[in-house]
Every structure is written in C-alpha cells, then in structure tokens.
C-alpha cells in the first residue's frame, strides 16, 4: 500500500501562489474555498520562508476521528477523502485538523456552513471515477488517470512535491545532501547565506 504525501521545500518556495491557482483551475472549487494556500512566515524579515499547505492526508486523520457522520475514508493510496452526500457541514473536522484543510462554502440559513470541501490529492471522491457528478462535487480525478496532483505538477521551482511518500523522501534527501555538500565546499557561513531565523551566530536576535 502506497502512502501519498506532499512535501513543501521551504528553501525553494517563492510564494508565487501558482499551486493555489492551479488547484482552483483544475478542480473548479466553490466560491470562497481554497483547498491550498501559501503561508509566509516572517514576511519581510530575515529568515522569511513560505510553505504551501493543503490537506496532508494524515495516516491517523483527526478529521475522520471527530466526524459525527463518519464520512471519511482512506484510499489504498493513503489519500483521505470524504463523502459529500453524507457530510452535514458541522465544521468539526475544521476544528480538529492540524492544517486548516477543511473549507466550507456558505449556504442555507444564516449563511452557515455548507458541505465541507478539501484537497482530494486530485483523486476525486466516492462517485464513479471521472464521472461528471464526481467532477462537480469533488473536482478532478487525476490519480485515476495516472497523473499526479495539479498543484505540484504546476510548481515552477519544484518546491511542492507530491507522490508516494518514499519517492518524495528520496528526492528531498538528495536535495539536502547536495545543499550540505555545496555549503561545506564554499566554507559555508549560515549567517552570510541568510539561512535560519533572525538569530546570528553569537545568538543575538537581529530582528
């Protein structure tokens, strides 16, 4: 059993929001809903980094644990999906999710929450693969077509990696080794490279 995972390489992400746009375009998600978002930490300060985040398809998913109607399921690829025909839009998955992945269109009385929508790893939903109904409710099913998620495929710097966890880990491990050896070769100075938080080598906070 494979386990599909995302990894966002903070040393590469340039906060272009291309993944967000690719996702919206590919899946035609409802108004006000963003399955993916890019968050920048220390914006405009030394040590600024950006990360693209969506549903992380948790192995032991908190959203599934709290759902009052038990509408989540994990596919053979380790992708966490849910059934919108059963979801009641209570918002509990949003309270429990570590990554703020579940999103809600505003509907009904008091513009309260509609049925939950979240990143599907571009794997559609419980309806027949690539049926028009599946597309309408859950967006594209690229996995069924043998393709990887649109957001990662779009990523210009290849910061956002998506795929089997072992392969993602391999790619990232190679990057880390390369980065470390390049740094050592240059007589690496963390401070000169402006890597890390705003704390210099003498431990003084510079921002």
């Amino acid at each position, binding site marked *: 059993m494979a386990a599909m995972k995302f990894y966002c390489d*903070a*040393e590469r992400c340039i906060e272009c*929001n291309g993944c*967000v746009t690719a996702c919206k375009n590919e899946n035609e998600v409802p108004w*006000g809903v*963003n399955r993916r*978002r*890019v*968050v*920048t*930490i*220390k*914006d405009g300060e030394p*040590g600024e*980094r950006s*990360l693209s*985040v969506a549903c992380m398809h948790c192995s032991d998913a*908190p959203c599934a*644990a*709290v*759902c*009052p*109607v*038990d*509408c989540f399921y994990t596919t053979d690829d380790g992708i966490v999906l849910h*059934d919108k*025909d*059963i*979801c*009641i*839009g*209570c*918002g*509990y998955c*949003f*309270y*429990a*999710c*570590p*990554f*703020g992945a579940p*999103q*809600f269109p*505003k509907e*009904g*009385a*008091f*513009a*309260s*929450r509609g049925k939950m929508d979240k990143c599907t790893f571009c794997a559609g939903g419980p309806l027949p693969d690539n049926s028009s109904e599946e597309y309408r409710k859950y967006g594209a099913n690229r996995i069924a077509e043998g393709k990887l998620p649109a957001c990662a495929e779009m990523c210009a710097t290849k910061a956002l990696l998506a795929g089997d966890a072992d392969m993602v880990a391999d790619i990232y491990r190679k990057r880390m080794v390369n980065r470390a050896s390049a740094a050592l070769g240059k007589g690496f100075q*963390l401070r000169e490279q402006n*890597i*890390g*938080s705003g*704390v210099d*080598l*003498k*431990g003084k906070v510079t921002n």
Partner: protein
Amino acid sequence: MSDKKQSRIRRHRKVAYSLLSLLVLTLVLPLIPYAVAEKDETAGKVFNPGTELWRDVRQRDRDVIGTTQMKSVDAGVLINEYGETWRHFRMQQLVPYGAALMGIVLSIILLFYLLRGPLRLQEEPSGKKIERFTVFERTVHWFTVAIFWLLALTGLILLYGRFVLIPILGADGFGITASACKEAHNLFGPTFLVALVLLFLTFVKDNIYARGDMLWLLKGGGMLGGGHVSAGRFNAGEKIWFWIAIIGGLVLSVTGLILVFSILGQSREIMGLSHVLHGIVALVVISVSFGHIYLGTAGVEGTLGSMTTGYVDEAWAKSHHDRWYAEVKAAEDGSDKIVDEPGLATEGKS
C-alpha cells in the same frame, strides 16, 4: 656573594616564575570561554535553519501567525495547536463521560422509584381544585420544553449517532438523519433564547431565595427523611432547577450562537472553546432535567396536572406547598393580611 652566584639565583628564580605562570595559564586559559559563554548563553550554538523554521511552524516557542493571500478564518496559521486538545476532549471525554453522567442519573432515578416509589399525598384528595399555573404560564413552560427537547435530541443524535445510529441506519441513512438534525438544531437554536427570556420573566418572581429554603434543602426536601417540608410556591429544589435551566440555557444559547454564526469569522479556538462549554452544559442540563421530569410526573403524585390542566388538588397544595396554599387562601378570602409563615412554625405538620 659573588656576582656569578647571584646571577644563578636570579636565573633560577626566573625559571620558577615562568613555570608557575605557565601552570596558572594552562589552568585558567581554558576557562575563559566558559566565563564569556556564561554571559551569552547562545554563543557557539549553530542555528539549524530547518529546525528554526519548523519550530516556528510548530509554534513551539511563540504564536507565529504567517501572512497569506487567503481571507478565510485562521488561514495564516500553519499548525492548529488547539485541534488535538479539542479532538481529545470531544472523543475521549465528552462522549464517554456524557453518556456515563446521563446513565448514572437515570439509574439513580430508577432505583429511587423502585425502592421508595412515588411520593404520595398525605391526605385523601379533597376534590377541591385550586389554580396553580395560568394558561400563559403553561404555554411558556411547554414552549420551552418543546424547543429544549428538540435541541437536546438533535444535539444528542449529533454526539452519539455515529456510535448508536450508524450501525442501525447505515452511513447513508444516518447522513440524512444527521443532516436534518443539524438543520433543525441550527434553525431552532436561536428561538431557545426567546423561550428562555419568557421563562425567566414569567417565573423569576417566585424563584428568589426565601426564608425556609435552606431548611427545605437541609431536610432533603422531605425525600430522605420522610414527611413533607414546608415550602412556598416553589420549593428550594425547584428554584435550583430554575436557575440551572436559566443560566445553563444562557450559556448554551451564547455558545450555540457563536457556533451557528461561523460567518462572523471567529477563530477556531473560540469555536472549539464554545463547543466544549456547549457540550458540557448541554449534558449537565439534560441530566438534571431527568430529575425534574421524574418529579413532575411519576415521582410525586398529583403534580403533572398542575402543568397540564393548570389545577391541583387542595390536598396536594397543602402537602407540598403549604405556604403558597395559605397565600392563595388568604387572597381568596379577600384579606390582605400577611400570612405569618405558618409552615415555618409548624413545619412537618401539614
């Protein structure tokens, strides 16, 4: 002393001093970095950029709110620190302890009923009726009851349906039930506040603490020792239930409204906290209401009529609410004289 000898001594002395200072230096020099380091704890530490970033993301040392283009609630938060606490509360505490609380209260009531049976009247029913609740008072009561139980049942289905109803109805079937429950709960939730205000205005005047209430409580309302304890229109137990219902209802309404109006953009933390309060108070109020329902129906003979027909037998009034009975009688007699709290003087007699 010859010059030669003196220069030799001087040379020896130089060697000795050199050796001594060398010894002192070898001992002291390595300590200098420690002395410096003590002033500056972080010196010499290399900050791993990865660690620093993930420490911020994980919010280990401080709240880190990032910036993002998204406008949704808490979009700038990468890791929701509070989520796991909330999950643990709902699944490991609210669900089992809530069920236990309701189960224990119901068992105690059942046991009490089986062992002691209903509280009987001490005199034969006189057949003479007096009015206990006006039409308006009864309407307010039943209006509140209807909304309360609609909300309680739909809420309990949301809380326990996954464990109790999915095995019976299946996931799809329960999806429809749960959806209806959620809509009903959210739609009728706000009307509960209206009922609560009406309930408060209608009954508050008779639910203020009065002399004799403490005595009633100390005697366990006559349930434990036997015999009846003097009381006004409402006894201390009823007064406590009134305030639990009002204050609990108020907490339920405020937290419920925070949960319903997610459109206002309150944070997950506020909503999670509201849910915690909502859940605890709901289960406590529901459990206490079991006691209220028992005493209003099977628990005390002749009580139910007061809320259905509005009238009670005089024997019932004398037995349970002697001071109120005396007040009613006094008013009927047209005399305005203040009743001299007969029950207090002759408590237990009635």
